[in-house]
């Protein structure tokens, strides 16, 4: 090691020092944002947040609205995404599969405001739905489908080949093979993908502004002409209002959103980690 000259060592130390600073620039904002937002929202946390709607400084309607939108996204984008991922993993030829995967990934790169604007033009205006729950669900779903397609595809393709060979050897029809043999090991991966997709949809604002609009009242079950409130909307709109109580509510809504998302993301990761161990044991 004597041969390593002084300049070489200095250069190395300099490089790694810069890398350490870079790592700090990743870690510090992540912590600062989560801690900062929750600390600012802390004084505003009270039972009133759950028992009152945004009309009276609570978040009830926004929490309910966010949950309704999530369920809607799960039903629409979840179904399409899982089936699409299944097709790419189990039916498509490698060539077709890569084309479909490519378009799904391109869709994930479309700016969310464009999705919201097209949702406004086509659903709210052209179809005459007005600001509606369904419009919001479809706009959100459009953004979320690519995540679900990808996670489902990965979930199916990590099932060991030996299981497929076994079921083919038994002469099982493809549907039975998918249902009885491939689905059980793939399921945790699919579910964790869905959970993380819901986390992402919970955090979206732009696609909802002009499709779901916003409402200070608890949502009703009507799908059309029925604006609905959601957590990110509270933060967005109240931040632009003058007054301390608006700012406090904006902070509280942001904190609730962040907590929900973190719980979902780490829940999803836990499922993934467990399923990976399970699949590793399965391979012949």
């Amino acid at each position, binding site marked *: 090691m004597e041969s390593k000259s002084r300049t070489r060592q200095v250069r190395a130390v300099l490089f790694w020092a810069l890398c350490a600073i870079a790592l700090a620039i990743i870690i510090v904002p992540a912590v600062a944002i989560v801690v900062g937002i929750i600390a600012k929202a802390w004084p505003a946390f009270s039972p009133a947040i759950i028992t009152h709607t945004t009309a009276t400084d609570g978040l009830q309607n926004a929490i309910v609205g966010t949950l309704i939108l999530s369920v809607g996204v799960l039903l629409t984008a979840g179904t399409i995404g899982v089936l699409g991922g299944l*097709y790419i993993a189990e039916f498509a030829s490698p060539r077709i599969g890569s084309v479909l995967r490519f378009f799904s990934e391109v869709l994930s790169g479309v700016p969310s405001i464009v999705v919201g604007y097209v949702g406004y033009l086509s659903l709210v205006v052209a179809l005459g739905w007005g600001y509606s729950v369904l419009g919001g669900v479809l706009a959100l779903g459009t953004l979320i489908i690519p995540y679900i397609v990808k996670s489902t595809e990965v979930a199916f393709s990590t099932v060991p080949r030996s299981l497929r060979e076994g079921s083919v050897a038994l002469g099982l029809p*493809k*549907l039975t093979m998918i249902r009885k043999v491939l689905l059980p090991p793939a399921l945790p991966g699919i579910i964790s993908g869905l959970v993380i997709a819901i*986390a992402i949809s919970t955090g979206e604002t732009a696609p909802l502004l002009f499709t779901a609009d916003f409402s200070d009242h608890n949502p009703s079950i009507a799908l059309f002409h029925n604006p609905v409130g959601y957590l990110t909307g509270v933060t967005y709109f109240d*931040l632009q209002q003058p007054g301390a109580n608006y*700012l406090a509510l904006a902070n509280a809504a942001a904190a609730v959103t962040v907590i929900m998302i973190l719980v979902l993301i780490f829940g999803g990761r836990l499922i993934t980690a467990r399923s990976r161990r399970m699949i590793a044991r399965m391979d012949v």
Partner: protein
Amino acid sequence: MAVIEADAGGTPAAGAATPPRPSLATEMTRGDRILKVVATVAAAIPGGLVAFLAAIMLVTALPAIIFNGTNFFTGTVFSLGHLYTTNTVTHNGEVAPSGASYGALSFIIGTFSTSVIALLLAIPVSVGGVLMLTEWFPRRIQGFLSIFLELLAGIPSVVFGLWGITIFAPYMAQHVYPALSHIGTVIPWFKGPIIQDGEGLLSAALVLGIMVIPIIASTTRELVRQVPVLAREGALALGMTRYEMVRTVVIPYIRRGIFAASLLGWGRALGETIAVLLISGNALNSLPHSIFSPISTIAATIASVLDGALTDFTGMGIHALAELGLLLLIISLITNFAGRLVVRRLASGALPVGRGV
């Protein structure tokens, strides 16, 4: 129990993305065929949606494209016109409220300047941070530290906006920007004035940079793990320092993927709406004089002006915003296509979908 000899060539873990199919093809029953048709339709939907989004944007933007001509790219005044009178102007056969002008140059400049500065922050930070993580920390701690990347990827853009405008920008305006503005005597772009709460180009760009980090960093992490161990060990065996090994072995191996991920990150920075809208100062008709100037971007303008455009009795406001949206869609599709094409040859799954979760 049927015992099957494991196929030596088809190791499931390695060929995960595309298991060799032909050998396992079986005859299809009726249920199989129904499932296949349904799944085919579902798989075609993402591509169909991309086409649908582009088509709606193009059709809606058409009247504005005709009305604006080149003024869209060269004009700096974006005004919906006098919406409370019934006077109109006609240009190229298209009608708009009098006084209407849809020049988007300042938004185009705002979009590119914020996103490029964001990348200048995000690329070195992501690559440097990940190299630090992968080269110096044991696997277990790497997993723990990766949590922070997921944290960043999961934080909603409206929360970035809230944090940016209530905590980050005021702090920077007080403690960092004044020092930075001294460079203004040498490079005019750094000259103030600094807005008191820190809203403006630089704050928006820095927050955007933080938002883009997960996309580039998660790709870098995947790629660094794929660097062949033999090449690494060979480099060290030749007496290289760890830094020299990274420079001569790791960086060349991951360069292409980082370039691709940067394109994706750029696309995301271009299209980011809410955070930028909250932090940029949302200046409609002014070109930035310095990196502290309030600006607006294409995406933020669509969100902030649409309410007004809805009251436009000629409907031209809606068309003009659609032209903005179309431009944004085209730019982000190009960056995305380019990014995905660059890594076509790399292992699939190397590039994250969307935000890098």
